[in-house]
């Protein structure tokens, strides 16, 4: 899958409380959550983000809470992909499970500014900064995780596995 979008750039340790503040956790649809995405560190994000835009951030993106509302809010905002130096582990799982594309690519993060145009090839695991012309290789996913991503997330992946095992039993 190939994605292309304008970059929103953030620093290290972007926590789930700023991705979606807890005061909005009394709702859970991506559309409702998206209205408040990132508002405590970037009040202009929710109004300015366009479908297909990308978030590029430093180390430990998504640290803190286990709230799946965080990747859902980013998805709801129309963000096509998050590229970070590294991800906090629960956010990493959640993004894969809900089908939000993420890539770990510190070199690309370092060489990307807000407003750059980024092209991401998820299959090849490459990040190209179209504003500079440079391409970077992201860390590959293990095959099992690729299977979940390929199925569109953990729910469709599991549903298919359950169907297959039921078919085998009968």
């Amino acid at each position, binding site marked *: 899958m190939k994605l292309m979008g304008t970059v929103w750039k953030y620093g290290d340790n972007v926590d789930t409380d700023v991705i979606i503040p807890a005061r909005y*956790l009394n709702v859970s649809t991506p559309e409702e959550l998206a209205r408040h995405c990132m508002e405590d560190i970037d009040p202009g994000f929710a109004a300015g983000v366009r479908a297909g835009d990308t978030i590029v951030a430093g180390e430990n993106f998504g640290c803190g809470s286990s709230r799946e*509302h965080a990747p859902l809010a980013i998805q709801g905002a129309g963000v096509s992909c998050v590229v970070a130096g590294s991800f*906090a582990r629960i956010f990493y799982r959640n993004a894969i499970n809900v089908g939000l594309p993420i890539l770990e690519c510190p070199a690309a993060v370092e060489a990307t500014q807000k407003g750059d145009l980024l092209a991401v090839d998820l299959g090849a695991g490459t990040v190209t900064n179209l504003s500079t012309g440079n391409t970077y290789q992201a860390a590959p996913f293990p095959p099992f*995780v690729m299977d979940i991503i390929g199925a569109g997330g953990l729910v469709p992946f*599991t549903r298919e596995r359950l169907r297959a095992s039921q078919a085998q039993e009968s």
Partner: protein
Amino acid sequence: MGHTLAEKIIAAHLVDGGGNGSGPGAGVEPSDLVEVTVDVVLSNDITAPIAIREFSELGVERVFDPDRVVMVADHFAPNKDIKSAEQCQVMRRFAQAQGLPHHFDVGRMGIEHVLLPEQGLVVPGDLVVGADSHTCTYGALGAFATGVGSTDVAVAMATGCVWLRVPETIRVVYRGRLRPWVGGKDLILYTIGQIGVSGARYKAIEFAGPAVSDLSMAGRFTMANMAIEAGAKVGLFAVDDTTRAYVAGRGVRPGHEHRPDADAAYAEVVEVDVGQIEPQVAFPHLPENARPVSRAGDVSIDQAVIGSCTNGRLEDLRVAAQVLRGRRVSPGVRCIVVPGSQQVYLDAVREGLVEIFVEAGAAVSTPTCGPCLGGHMGVLAAGERAVSTTNRNFRGRMGDPESEVYLAGPAVAAASAVVGRIAAPEEVVQ
């Protein structure tokens, strides 16, 4: 080569033909992707509604085992507004429809990570996943317990299984004698200050050494609880007599005691001399900004919160009461005490702690996560500062993005409430 505590508990839960092709009994190595069975699956009023929605997408009618699925209304409960009431209702209806015996509602509940160990729902050797990042609290019992998202919980509720990457382990060894007023909270804040908020990212932490052997279970729960604040997947203690005494008479199932091998391979071993550690305060906006209270400077406060899944146990309230007994909360400070469970509340009433708090001018709340995450029961306005025994001081965590949270243990929080600025307990109690 031997194995760490985390590796042993995971190996004991491997699903036959798991992700790495190994069967039960086989050893696992760091970075193996494995499928494991879970003993308990937990969610709360914020994370359960999404988990229930995803569960319904799986094409499964019933949860894998109603006794193993635990749901707790604690975050925005007692319901803080209509939408929160609806979330609790979704969870309540699902629990009724599935016949879940361990659904805890207002009046019977507690903050989940205080409640589950207290009720004996987690026992040593368990593998637990919870849609709450502080699920790692149960590591204090020698259980591999880790926070996951709602979708992971949905799949675990349906199948009784979850996929995991076997973590490397950092072993932190605590030696020396604790100074007065220093507890588990100070040790873990100090440790996070040393290794950083991503110092244990994707890894397990093993807490060990004579100084933590001397800690009560409450102190150990506090430390395991904040393993996630260093990025860790789990924070584990090996079972000892203190653990056994705590579990005796509570456990709903027999537990399994695992211990790390002497030749286990660690990613890192960190030595800590606790004799050097003062009561700690973590400054905004990261838990790693820990410093000794003597170096806090002049930080006036508007609110002091004593409670939470980190420090809402009876032992914590006793420490706070020791400081507040016969004293008054500073006129400019709102002091809010939140017992961690109905049982903690009842014990605090019977011991006279609640009387001490109310006489000191503190508000005592029913158990709830409310103030910790800026939900209700103590939300901060712009420019306000709180000292809090909770676990996170992220920007906007307790309310307005321009408010500030300073993390500390119950002794410092109570002393600060009396003085009106961040204060060491010795300033108040001679």
